């Protein structure tokens, strides 16, 4: 599926398009399908999110996994600082990225 991502204008935080808004949790991302470019352009124009763009991902057991490692690092946080990621208590989080 195609999901949309960008960085929040004010905080720079990585965000994912939920269909109505932006979330910091990749699992909230929805398939933007053929709408991806239109939504990206609209949200860019609204100036809430920096340079939104579409990426490939898949949904496995209800969880969203971006196809490229770079987006998985973005979705989690730095693998070398688990304490600063979105899942500081999850020992398997790093393996999910790699």
């Amino acid at each position, binding site marked *: 599926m195609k999901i949309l991502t960008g960085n929040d*204008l*004010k905080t*720079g935080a*990585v965000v994912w398009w939920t269909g109505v808004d932006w979330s910091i949790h990749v699992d909230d991302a929805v398939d933007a399908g053929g709408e991806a470019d239109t939504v990206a352009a609209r949200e*860019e124009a609204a100036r809430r999110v920096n340079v939104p763009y579409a990426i490939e991902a898949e949904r496995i057991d209800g969880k969203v996994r971006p196809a490229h490692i770079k987006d998985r*690092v973005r979705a989690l946080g730095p*693998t*070398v600082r688990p304490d600063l990621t979105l899942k500081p208590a999850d020992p398997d989080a790093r393996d999910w990225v790699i």
Partner: protein
Amino acid sequence: MYLYDQYDQAMVDARVEEFRDQARRRLEGKLSEDQFKPLRLMNGLYLQLHAYMLRVAIPYGTLNGRQMRALADIAETYDRGYGHFTTRQNIQYNWIKLEDAADILADLAEVEMHAIQTSGNCIRNISSDHFAGAAADELVDPRPYAELLRQWSSFHPEFSYLPRKFKIAVIASETDRAAMKLHDIGIRIVSNSEGEPGAAFYVGGGMGRTPMIAPCIREFVPLDRLVTYAEACLRVYNRYGRRDNKYKARIKILVHELGAEEYTRQVEEEFAHLLEQGVEPPIAELDRIRTYFADPDFEDGPKSVDRSDPDFALWVERNTVRHKHDAYVSAVISLKPVGGIPGDASAEQMRLMADLAERYSFDELRVMHTQNIVLPHVRIADLHALWSALDEAGLGAPNLDTIEDIIACPGLDYCSLANARSIPVAQRISERFAAKGRTAELGELKLKISGCINACGHHHAGHIGILGVDRKGVENYQLLLGGSEAQDTALAKITGPGFDEDGIVDAVETAAEVYLREREDGERFLDTYRRIGMTPFKEALYG
């Protein structure tokens, strides 16, 4: 160290207010990202993988305790409690909010710091020898010249939109501790046969996609023409640099394509023209700057220490460097604890380093391009007290220039340009060698890792270099051998096919074993490689 005069301060303060207005307009939606991006980049504000990243300039790596404490406060107040010291002797913060950026710049301005020209196609922070003013082997302190060039290049209208970014290093000793020949312009302060000081110019070096060692284009430029000659070098580049192709836009490509001889001819022609125009600042300005870099009041004292404590003795042996005054040394604070993140320091550690600098080093610190910190002037009599404080805070790793002292760029953990993660590889290598107790046995072995071809981790110049690449979406690592960024500058060569994350750690160990097997008396890894060549390493690595 240099202190701002009213012009410096006014310029920096004005820039803060200008940026505050720009950021406000962006936050209010009056500027698009396309409009705002060049403005934020001019103030060192990038957008990286997880957030905005702010790169703060530390001119020629020199700062005082008050400034280091301000950096700690910024880490704690606006970021997540730490900062990352870089191979350009700067510091980066990884978790900055746009809403806070102008306030951070204002806090920096209060301690005579800024983030101007830490990005963009302009002359970047000028780097220098981290032992400047302390080194036993230097001709003079190179920093007054670096400072003069900093002032000349700051907001220089002609050089604000160069074909690409531009990096200058200034040193003043035969020993190169600043990778001088791997800069766009490398300057070495020398003396001629009459004993007069001048500058040798090396132009067109660099790492990145197309690494090149800068040729010397002029062996002696009188110091009262230093800025004029630099300006001539820049002018020719600004006029003919390849603006049509980002990958060919650095000066190294121009010098290479024209040939050093033709480039030099054009520079000399421009130099003659500029001499008529009188662009050189008055020598009184250099003299004024020099007064800020006068030696502190060194005192005589003990020239040796009690080394009966083996841990202390090892640290003294490894992490202290001879000083021009025999009662002092320069002490290196390693930011490379085993398994740690190279170059990262917490706010608490920064404050401790600031305190120790004030107490033991005439209130001076230096950032090394190898991502460590130097206290340049420590009395030998104070060494044990200094080491005890560092050791207690986890800053006493005795590993300068060893395989544990790895340069690693932020890589794919933070950097949006990365292909692969650098930091975990560095962590695993240092853990592997420390666990096996092999670090000391290997002696000087400089290992450098970059997460992409941009080479911020200086992999081309590592005795062992590692380059992260993307192989169909999977991290892969190329191994390189034989580089050096010292006075014997050399570019490392790729051994062969790359390795996965586990494989690259094993490959480094294999290369180290070849060295241990083949080395002759007194040879470093690099010396052995140069003597025996690549073949034995390849055979061991790929069978």
